[in-house]
């Protein structure tokens, strides 16, 4: 009676027989006939064993005894010797090994000598392992060619190469005996090692897949690597190829030493499983990068598909990859050969369009941060690039590694009656990089209408004041001293309305520091006849990190009382009957307009004055607080930035807009991958996405507003770090605005940050900034209220003695020289707009102000000043905190003059 078979048993037998067919062909027998005989034989064996049913396991067991070997000559003599019993019956002595039969008749494994084994250990195990560790620690390849280990998973997969190769070599040694390593791992194939054998094959498959991938990636670098072998480093570039050869050699070795029959298929499956898994892993990890690159290229084009590509990137794009492109990290040798290098400017623009954030406002790429120089990274929470491509330039550029803000101190004195404030911001930068000198760069957003009136650098513990001169003169001097001579300068220039760029170099490596002080004179905003608001400078862009634990130590002294200062301020005794407030704020708190302080002021003080620095001794600066009548626009074009950072602000905007009179025609122009014209009621439904190009919406809004004289365009937006399209059309419209009836542009930023559009529109009368004094809704309502109610402002003018007036009115409030500086600033801007550049520069120099016409630079030595044709400010003429009264001013001035002359003598001394 025939024993029944399970279907899997049948399939297993057929699979095994299929594997045997090639071997049978070599024997000269008829394969079909032999296979048929074997089927019959196995069935006979099954019947003889009286099995009730033949299972897959039974088939394997039976086939082990039956599976043929090609030639009798292939009886391995050593196998015979190894399996020959030492004492047994004569019959047993004569038997060749039979357990398992297949093992005894396996072909002899390929012979590999000791030298080859050593080579496999070196090139298949040690070299890949050392290369992996070297790259993980130093990131050398990432810096020079491309990043082979962008994620931890990549490192894990690469580690499987030396591990897989070592495993095969180790088992070969262990199971082959010390004397002859050719003794295959046949014993590993035997029970109970069969499972190990499966893993062994899988590991080899993985190693082959990973090493193939990296070998291919490094093929273009081979010529360079061969040359660099003499410097050892080339060996690392050759490691993938060496590992691939080793893995393939071990695979051949495994294949030839493989047992026959049922094991063949299983082990081959295991190998392919390892290969496929590793391959899929690599492809899976590379896929987001490849897709992101593809869509990045499409998005950069001017086609219809670019918008779709941009949407895809916002949803699925690899943000880390986009960020790396912003820092110029190489995408890969093959990619560079095919597509060329990445355009960094385009990458930064795209990063903003996709994420809605400036690239330098987020931590540098993670993969870079997690590697290299871990010692100082413990003190540094931002990361950054190794090579600072923005050194000496006029942009902030990306975060640089090792640079941070070590301390920040802000001393403020204000006179609410005269509506001015003076802030001295002392910043100390620290460079923890072990080798590189660093330049600290920051764009600083000044209080609305503010101007830099003092710049100080500490050199060897001594304060050095800046020279104020023409913008190009100061920049040239800075570049020469900083970039060429590598000495200690600091430079401040304007960077758009209410913005300056601070840069200082070199901050020495190894925890070196550099300390600078920025003096800022600014008007206080008048929100009522008896209320003046104090606000302060904030960073809008920076190339250094700020630790989360750092606090800006702030001290405010005023002649008037604060009105309900917010929580966090501590009152302190001030000098000369003044009121002082003290607070320590984190960077995010400082950037929040909510921390502005409202001071009371005497509504009876309408006039203030201070001496001027005019050539004429009988001139003074007069400020008069006066109210302006409301002037409601005939139309309001509200341009809303549709970037992702705006989403949370739309409800507040809707709330403020709802307070406007219903009679005012309002149209909302939302920038959302184009321009959407909406009714104001639709504002709460808006949802921001990525980073948007607001220029088309501004143009459309201007066109609509220009249809009716006296219209207003209000642009509410988030950070705008890059110009996506051209803004010349917009500038042209605003530039040619001669009639005050043409629409003006009011700029309102929801948070501090770069604004390239306003920078480009600097100097235009028709563009003004809405100061941030409170919440967005409060500031918007204040703006809208100013169209319906009288507003207060301080009108500052220069007056001269005349036939009717020879001295300032004694009833006027006499105040410090900051009033004169504020007048000078507005005068300089007027001269600048009228293209009277030389006059503007001369006035800026006389009042020691940083304006579009002028800059401030501190050089290390007097010789450098002389060589650059610059003159440092007289210490007696720079503002100080607190601004002293006249007698004390004279005393301080005399002392400072003595110190200054002494220092000049010391500097000039050879």
């Amino acid at each position, binding site marked *: 009676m025939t024993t029944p078979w399970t279907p899997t048993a049948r399939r297993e037998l057929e699979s095994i027989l299929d594997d045997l067919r090639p071997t049978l062909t070599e024997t000269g*027998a008829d394969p079909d006939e032999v296979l048929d005989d074997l089927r019959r034989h196995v069935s006979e064996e099954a019947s003889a064993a009286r099995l009730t049913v033949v299972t897959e396991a039974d088939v394997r067991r039976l086939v082990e*005894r039956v599976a043929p070997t090609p030639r*009798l000559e292939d*009886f391995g*003599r050593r196998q015979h010797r190894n399996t020959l019993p030492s004492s047994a019956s004569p019959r047993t002595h004569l*038997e060749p090994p039979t357990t398992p039969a297949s093992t005894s*008749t396996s072909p002899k494994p390929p012979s590999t000598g000791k030298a080859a084994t050593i080579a496999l250990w070196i090139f298949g195990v040690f070299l890949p392992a050392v290369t992996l560790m070297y790259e993980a620690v130093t990131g050398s390849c990432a810096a020079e060619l491309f990043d082979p280990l962008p994620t931890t998973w990549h490192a894990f997969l690469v580690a499987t190469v030396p591990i897989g190769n070592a495993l095969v070599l180790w088992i070969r040694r262990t199971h082959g005996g010390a004397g002859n390593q050719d003794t295959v791992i046949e014993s590993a194939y035997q029970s109970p090692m069969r499972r190990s054998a499966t893993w062994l094959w899988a590991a080899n498959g993985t190693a082959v897949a990973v090493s193939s991938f990296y070998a291919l990636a490094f093929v273009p670098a081979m010529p360079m690597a061969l040359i660099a072998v003499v410097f050892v480093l080339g060996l690392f570039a050759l490691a993938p190829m060496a590992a691939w050869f080793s893995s393939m050699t071990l695979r051949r070795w495994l294949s030839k030493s493989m047992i026959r029959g049922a094991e063949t298929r299983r082990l081959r499956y295991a190998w392919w499983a390892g290969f496929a898994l590793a391959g899929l892993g690599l492809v899976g990890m590379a896929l987001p990068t490849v897709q992101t690159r593809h869509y990045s290229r499409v998005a950069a084009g001017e086609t219809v598909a670019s918008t779709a590509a941009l949407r895809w990137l916002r949803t699925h794009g690899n943000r880390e990859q986009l960020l790396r492109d912003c820092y110029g990290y190489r995408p890969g040798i093959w990619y560079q050969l095919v597509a060329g290098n990445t355009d960094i400017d385009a990458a930064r623009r795209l990063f903003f369009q996709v994420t809605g954030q400036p690239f330098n406002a987020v931590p540098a790429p993670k993969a870079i941060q997690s590697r290299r120089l871990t010692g100082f990274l413990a003190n540094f929470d931002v990361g950054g690039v190794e090579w600072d491509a923005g050194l000496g330039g006029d942009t902030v550029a990306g975060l640089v590694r090792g640079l941070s803000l070590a301390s920040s101190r802000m001393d403020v004195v204000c006179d609410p009656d005269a509506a001015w404030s003076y802030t001295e911001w002392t910043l100390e930068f620290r460079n923890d990089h072990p080798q590189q000198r660093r330049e600290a760069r920051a764009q600083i957003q000044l209080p609305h209408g503010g101007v830099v009136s003092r710049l100080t650098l500490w050199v060897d513990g001594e304060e050095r004041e800046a020279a104020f001169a023409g913008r190009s003169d100061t920049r040239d001097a800075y570049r020469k001293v900083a970039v060429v001579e590598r000495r200690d300068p600091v430079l401040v220039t304007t960077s758009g309305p209410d913005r300056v760029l601070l840069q200082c170099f070199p901050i020495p490596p190894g925890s070196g520091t550099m300390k600078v002080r920025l003096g800022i004179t600014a008007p206080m905003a008048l929100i009522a006849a008896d209320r003046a608001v104090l606000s302060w400078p904030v960073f809008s862009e920076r190339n250094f990190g700020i630790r989360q634990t750092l606090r800006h130590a702030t001290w405010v002294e005023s002649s008037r009382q604060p009105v309900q200062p917010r929580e966090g301020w501590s009152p302190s005794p001030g000098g000369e009957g003044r009121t002082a407030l003290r607070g320590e704020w984190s960077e995010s708190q400082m950037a929040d307009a909510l921390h502005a302080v409202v001071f009371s002021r005497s509504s009876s003080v309408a006039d203030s004055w201070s001496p001027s620095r005019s050539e004429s001794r009988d001139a003074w600066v007069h400020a008069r607080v006066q109210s302006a009548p409301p002037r409601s626009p005939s139309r309001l074009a509200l341009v809303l930035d549709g970037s992702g950072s705006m989403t949370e602000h739309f409800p507040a905007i809707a709330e403020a807009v709802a307070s406007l009179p219903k009679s005012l025609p309002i149209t909302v122009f939302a920038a959302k991958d184009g321009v959407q014209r909406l009714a104001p009621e639709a504002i709460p439904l808006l949802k921001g996405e990525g980073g948007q190009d607001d220029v088309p919406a501004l143009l459309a809004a201007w066109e609509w507003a220009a249809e009716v004289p006296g219209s207003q365009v209000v642009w509410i937006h988030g950070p705008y770090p890059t110009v996506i399209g051209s803004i010349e059309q917009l500038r042209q419209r605003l530039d040619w605005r001669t009639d005050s009836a043409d629409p003006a542009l009011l700029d309102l930023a929801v948070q501090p940050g770069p604004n390239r559009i306003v920078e480009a529109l600097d100097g235009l009368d028709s563009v003004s900034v809405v100061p941030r004094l409170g919440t967005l809704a409060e500031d918007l309502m204040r703006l809208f209220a100013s169209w319906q109610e009288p507003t207060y402002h301080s009108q500052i003018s220069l007056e001269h003695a005349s036939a009717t007036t020879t001295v300032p009115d004694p009833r006027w409030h006499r105040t410090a020289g900051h009033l004169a500086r504020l007048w000078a600033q507005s005068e300089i801007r007027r001269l600048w707009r009228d293209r009277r550049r030389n006059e503007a520069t001369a006035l800026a120099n006389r009042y020691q102000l940083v304006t579009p016409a002028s800059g401030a630079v501190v050089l290390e030595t007097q010789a450098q000043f002389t060589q650059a044709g610059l003159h440092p400010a007289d210490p007696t003429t720079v503002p100080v905190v607190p601004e002293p009264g006249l007698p004390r001013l004279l005393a301080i001035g005399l002392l400072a003059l003595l110190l200054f002359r002494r220092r000049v003598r010391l500097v000039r001394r050879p």
Partner: protein
Amino acid sequence: MVARVADSNEIEPRMGDFFDNWTVQVRKGLIELCVLNALAERERYGYELVKTLVDIPGLGITEGTLYPLLSRLRLQGLVSTRLEESTEGPARKYYNLTDEGRALRSQMLVYLDELNRGAGILRKRGGNA
């Protein structure tokens, strides 16, 4: 012969290798003759033939080796086959010697006898080990 083989465990390893290779060569020449002898006695089916030959001490043949050999012999016309249904399992394949096979077997036996005789003379002259 059995006693001689048993002594192989006592000889030097290098010499043991030599002996192993020598036995392989001897067996290689004898397997075909053993098959022909087994079939000369009577017709046998495959499974029976395999079991018969596997039980011969020192021949070192396995089931996996025998079937290709039988196929080669059939292709060379030395054996013939026929199928016969069986009540105990699959149809049995019976092997029988052809005339050519019988003739060849006779030649091989004569040759082997002569070879043994000649080797025996030399063995007597050399004495028993």
